């Protein structure tokens, strides 16, 4: 969108964004506004993003318990992380498991539900609301809901399975099923991705389908050749979003573990983290346990550096996509 306003006085004609001088840089008067508008956020970024990020890197090379001064220990934390710590391997495996399974299933499930909802003609506002609603349930409440619904003693799921003569499994109390149960919990609350994909599907130009129909393409062909390519950027967003989501998977894991264990201890007690049998001990949970329960803050920082590098690699994909979208917008 180019706005060609009649030039007032001797100022150069401006194109979008209107405040750019011909060779970049904001005009003096506007620089003051930019500085004023961005100042609070700039302070916030410096204090709550840039500083702690650098400090995390620094602490990762130290032995630090949060009280005494941090002693420089070189790479010792990283050496322990990659070769010594027997638990971190389990934690990294659990997080990797969640990253792969949650990402694939969240996007696939969101696409599946959205494809059905896009074809509903009767009662669609009610059905969309019902499918979206669980994603609003606060994570702690949602986790309690699932631990209850799947509890082996009195839970409705196993009761229903019982009607069919199936001996229901232990779900959150079974080390091999606790992560799948968390996956179900996550899918239940994946309404946001669903809505984003649904919006993208509804945005696909109708005439593309008509043209394809004339060419004799069936529904499967239409989905593969028209729907999928058109909504691909949204699916990519869903993938990156899910990866970052899974990398920081914390609340549901820690709450499910402690509530399912039935422990009388307060949540956050290190005894019950990862219940059952460390199967819900994710990388961030172990980071929290090491940093804030055991006060191995130097080691926790080393874990944080690893977490940052991995998550930033995926964020970079998103940034590239956003910038591509922006320049497209500017061109049109």
């Amino acid at each position: 969108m180019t706005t060609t306003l009649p030039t007032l006085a001797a100022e150069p004609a401006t194109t979008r964004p209107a405040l750019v001088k011909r060779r970049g840089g904001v005009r003096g008067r506007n620089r003051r506004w930019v500085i004023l508008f961005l100042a609070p956020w700039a302070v916030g970024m410096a204090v709550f993003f840039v500083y702690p990020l650098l400090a995390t890197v620094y602490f990762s090379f130290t032995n630090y318990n949060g009280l005494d001064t941090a002693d420089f220990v070189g790479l010792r934390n990283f050496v322990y992380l990659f070769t010594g710590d027997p638990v971190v391997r389990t934690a990294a495996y659990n997080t990797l498991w969640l990253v792969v399974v949650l990402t694939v299933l969240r996007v696939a499930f969101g696409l599946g539900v959205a494809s059905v909802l896009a074809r509903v003609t009767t009662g669609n506002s009610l059905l969309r609301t019902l499918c979206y609603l669980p994603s609003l349930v606060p994570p702690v409440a949602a986790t309690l809901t699932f631990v209850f619904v799947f509890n082996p003693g009195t839970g409705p799921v196993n009761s229903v399975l019982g009607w069919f003569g199936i001996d229901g499994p232990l779900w959150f109390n079974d080390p091999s099923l606790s992560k799948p149960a968390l996956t179900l919990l996550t899918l239940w609350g994946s309404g946001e991705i669903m809505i984003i994909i649904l919006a993208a599907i509804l945005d696909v130009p109708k005439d593309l389908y008509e043209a394809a129909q004339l060419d004799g393409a069936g529904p499967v062909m239409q989905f593969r050749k028209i729907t999928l390519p058109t909504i691909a950027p949204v699916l990519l967003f869903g993938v990156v979003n899910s990866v970052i989501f899974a990398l920081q998977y914390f609340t549901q894991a820690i709450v499910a573990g402690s509530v399912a264990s039935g422990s009388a201890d307060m949540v956050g007690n290190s005894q019950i983290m990862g219940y059952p049998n460390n199967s819900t001990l994710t990388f961030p949970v172990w980071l929290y346990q090491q940093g804030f329960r055991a006060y191995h803050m130097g080691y926790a920082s080393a874990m944080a550096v690893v977490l940052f590098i991995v998550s930033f690699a995926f964020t970079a994909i998103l940034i590239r996509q956003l910038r591509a979208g922006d320049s497209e917008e500017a061109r049109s």
Partner: protein
Amino acid sequence: MTALLSEPPKVAPATAVPRRPRNKRQLLDWIAVHSVALAMGVIFTVPLVFVFLTSVMSDRQALTSNMWPTEWHFENFALVFEKAPMLTYLGNSLLYSVVATAGMLLSSVPAAYALARFRFRGSNAAFMLLIAAMMLPPQVVAVPLYSMWASAGLTGTLWPLIVPYLLGDAFSIFLLRQFFLTIPEDYLDAARIDGCNEFQILYRVLLPMTRPGIAAASLFTFLYTWNDYFGPLLYVGERQDSWPLSIALASFRGMHRATQWNLTMAATTLVLIPVLVLFLFAQKSFVRGITFTGVKG
């Protein structure tokens, strides 16, 4: 796309079956699609129904695997308040969510305007920094921030979680920026010609035109803080009188050594209700906000 949940789409996609199935094949298609959709709707809703039904059961019945309450004990909800100081927790949650949301608006709206509407040296870098901050797992920066707040003597309170919102929230800035970009520059230029300064343009021209964006950013910030568990666990986990509802709810079952689920489910229902009410009142803003965060193809 603005009202995905509340209104039928204006343009039905071509793959959609026509409103009135014309022949047998289309009728079968219609039935198939709608039965699958209905089943999905039921599956998505049924866990919450179980939560509610269990929350009104008697202690005795809650120990059985019955699904339908034989007696309806609505006093369970009052009992939750007796078992735990829920009002204190509610107050803490409200303090966190309300102050953070208000602070977010004050600090993030101008920043979003500057990022959406001005090209300046470093504006690309600023945008990339914004995305990086938005996607940062909170655990990455927890250690230095905790040390920082501990030396300020503010651990044990919710202020370490609130103060950052007074200085701009990355996600909200991003969302508001997306909304601000949709307003054609002509409106702003017209205001400039009329002699408005940038502050006036932002508050008199842009904000009235982007109310759904403001609503969406406020809703998401409110919900994020209301639901936040990691932050409060970090700073007030050991200070029970500063707990927000999220921590209190997670600890409810363990702390009251409750083997039966009814009161825990009643507490869960109580935490759920405000969020669901908020949603019913602001469906449109929610959906618009969500679709605006998804990268548009």
